[in-house]
């Protein structure tokens, strides 16, 4: 497929890995375990999957003001996704990456991609540092 051009929300290194395209919006606070990277929200259809090292595509996020804290802990614990793809920017969640970057920790790239296009992502995905997604 032709590479998809996306908008970079937070700059970061090129990444490649298995895509994990969530089938429903998620709240990181109470939804993702900061000490394992597991999806723990009992009502989430992807419960039990692990986001660590994945190209994580989120069709939506549910705002808790502590989502940033969970993402910051994940980064510090070396359990963050390799890249985060969002349908729309979530300033609270991405604040976790902004702060992690300020702390000098290695942070994943974050991109904006429509949730309909997220569904077309291949099982293995490569993302360049300038935001191009290739299968």
């Amino acid at each position: 497929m032709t590479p998809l051009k996306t908008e970079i929300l937070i700059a970061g290194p090129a990444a490649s890995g298995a895509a994990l395209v969530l089938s429903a919006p998620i709240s990181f606070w109470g939804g993702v375990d900061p000490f394992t990277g597991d999806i723990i929200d009992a009502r989430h259809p992807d419960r039990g999957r692990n986001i660590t090292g994945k190209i994580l595509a989120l069709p939506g996020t549910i705002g808790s003001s502590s989502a940033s804290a969970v993402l910051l802990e994940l980064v510090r614990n070396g359990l963050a996704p390799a890249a985060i793809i969002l349908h729309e920017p979530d300033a609270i969640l991405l604040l976790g990456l902004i702060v992690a970057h300020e702390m000098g920790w290695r942070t994943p790239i974050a991109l904006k991609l429509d949730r309909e296009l997220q569904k077309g992502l291949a099982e293995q995905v490569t993302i360049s540092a300038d935001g191009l997604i290739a299968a």
Partner: protein
Amino acid sequence: MTSLTRHESATAAGADGAAMAMRIVAESARLLGAPRLICVQSAHIDGALYHGDAGTLFAEELVRLGAKVAIRATLNVGALDLMGCSKSHLSGARRDMAKRLMLAYEAMGCEKSWTCAPYQAGHRPALGSDVAWGESNAVAFCNSVLGARTNRYGDYLDIACAITGRAPDCGLHRAENRLATVIVDVSGLPAALFGSDWIWPVLGTLYGREIGTSIGIVSGVTGPVSEDKLKAFGAAAASSGGVGLFHIAGVTPEAPDVVTATGGRLATRITVTPAMVHAAQAGLSTIHGAASIDAVAIGSPHLSLEELESVGSLLASRPARVPIYACTGRHVVREADRTGLRKALEKLNVIVVADTCVVVTPILPDINGVLMTNSGKFAHYAPGNTGYDVVYGSLSDCIESAIAGRPVITNAALRP
């Protein structure tokens, strides 16, 4: 694209704590689509509650880089009762990190208020002023009851705004985004209902669930509504629906009437029926017909002095069979210590919890028990955070239940 002033750009280019804070505010503004930053007059900071070590390391890094708050900044609850009124079971390294986190925020010049009701501890920004507040109930009260303007500033952005005195210019800072688009009509409910304390968390829960993050106005409320009732309504609405600003016609300052609060624009109307109230009230309890209770928890948001005093008068010297956890701020504890109220309450099996509360840190005994509460917010969060089932009731029913050791529900409207 966010444009910064020369001063803001120069600050962000530095290498100190203020520079780090300015970059965090500016990056957030960019993601939020804010065209510029605005000056804020005060902050209320939720970031000192321990979620994990990274938060502590961030706060300590700011301290190391010499960051100080530039504006008045009160602190929300932490994970520990630094006043020593109650005991958290948090232990070992986690307790140390939670303590270090609280001390780091104090070191940046934040006020040691340690309360989720700063607006009852003397922090009351003026009508129309811009501020940067965190903690959902405090945000709702600040916007709605005080008429000051804030978005929901969560972990990390709150302290960054306090250090820089700046916030992204967007959302509820802008007058046009504060107009109601939904009318929640409660005129069909019995007028006497609005005088009782238990209705406000129920209405707040119902309101939050119906309108989510939209701005609404409640119309049809009769009689004066106390600040403690508005506090309970806002906390419940914020936890069930993410409400950051509500209006009540004839009660809150930006809503002298419906036309003013909606800006004269067409609004969706939701008519609240008694059946909807009954359903919302029943939904606050996770267990019905419990034979006994293990504890009572009150004070989310933190109890005012008046509320703590009413616990005393409702107990009327009768000891509680199960403990009553009364969560409040040190501004109330100081007063209650001066008058001897705390000692008197403790003799009757009341455990005063200061600086924190029972759903954010492990204070309750570690059992899968039954908790009775008059707080919509506790009812919402206690099952997930503590493992306790919840029975919801009025304050007087909570106290009678604590004395009896089993649920005592006297209000007919509260019976399922």
